[in-house]
């Protein structure tokens, strides 16, 4: 895991979707429509280019993905 210099979860982090695990439920797009977008044809979630979230919110999205497909892109 990468560092969290602020320690309060406000540091912005990028996210990754494992497209092999995603089953297209759409919880992520519902919760963060500016960050996640389901494909119009395949309903697989992808991260919008350049989008990020505060670490605390990112962890919540990781937790609430039923497929376990979302993770934080730590360097």
């Amino acid at each position, binding site marked *: 895991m990468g560092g969290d210099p602020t320690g309060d979860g406000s540091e912005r982090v990028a996210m990754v979707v494992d497209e092999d695990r995603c*089953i*297209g*439920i*759409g919880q992520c*797009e519902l919760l963060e429509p500016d960050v996640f977008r*389901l494909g119009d044809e*395949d309903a697989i979630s992808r991260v919008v280019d350049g989008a990020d979230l505060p670490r605390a919110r990112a962890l919540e999205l990781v937790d*609430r993905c039923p497929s*376990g497909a979302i993770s934080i892109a730590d360097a």
Partner: protein
Amino acid sequence: MADTTKGPASPADIASPTIYLDGIPHEGFAAIREVDGLVWHPYGDQGDRSGFWAVTRHADVREVSKSPDVFSSAIGHTNLWDLEADALEARRSLIDSDAPDHTRLRRVVSKAFTPRTTRNWEGMARDIAAELVEDFVADGGGDWVGKVAAPLPIKVILAILGVPTEDADYMVELTNYLVEGTGEGTSLPDDAYGNTTPTRLLPFNSPASHALYEYAEKMRQLRMAEPGEDLVTGLLEAEADGERLTAAEYRNFFQLLVFAGNETTRTAMIHGAMALAEHPDEWARLQADPSLVVRAVDEVIRWASPILHMRRTASRDTELAGTPIAAGDKVVMWYAGANRDPEAFDDPYRFDVGREDNPHYAFGGGGPHFCLGAFLARMEIQVLLEEMLARDVVLAPGSAPERLASNFVHGVSSVELAVA
């Protein structure tokens, strides 16, 4: 507490279907939640030996749901009784699959049920809800199940599938027979609806599944000849591209969508309406602040716990809540228990339309089997509440509900409600 062959004996019976004629045994679930670790519950013709681990705490249901590699949906059965291998194979659907089969099957239908797609159906659902509510009020009340809660979700799922609305009553009739299969057994003779398949090979051991298979085949032929924009066409096109759906997968999908798309949402609407009739102060709160409707929807769903349990089977030796579990053991997640766990909900026995923190597991505990129709169900319940609010409909208790003897669906076959 006496030890059984596996672990501490359950302090309460939560599996006998007839218990549910009096409603969910909440005191029994509370007693089980309070035992350290897991309890072993007798079940079936071998009593203690064919029993199951009863998982009733919110955190434990979550752990089972989120560990599909350890707690399999594809072994044994997802209901309490085991199926022989050929029966399991004949009726296998999305519900009874693990990855990678589950992933492949789920992706065939996922696009039709995302939050974004669901919004496309909202106007249609609202029109249906408005008409049913207006008729209910014009009649001065009556059987809420037959007049509102059953027709609304079946009409919506049939429209999505592309099945003619005039067959809605027939579909409700068939799925009602399926629910019987989770209780004391079907009341139908084995050859009902022209069935010739051994019933042990049919979903819910019911000849009504044969009728749904026949209907699925009729729809297949109709849409092969004349494709539409509907989900049956979508299933068939997924089948047609070579490797996705087999004939058995298609008909089991059709059967599952008709069943799950109406019995569950119906059940939520029944318990929701009963709760609102019994708690007029909560309805008045919603009338005073309609912005609470989104929270009210989830509280209705938590309160209802339409599906009481789902079973998993341990694929290897493991441990849960400090209790060792052997490969092959049945592990049963009782959503009905998790949804009243005081560790997860403040004042869990209070029906609170404004409940802020409501992580209920009525759609499952959060793993890959998360309810496919969760967003559709929420939308349907929301438009129903909104159409009632728009007409200032106030429900009041009428007769006691006629409940089902099922430990699987928290079903009510009829309940009279009055319009105050």
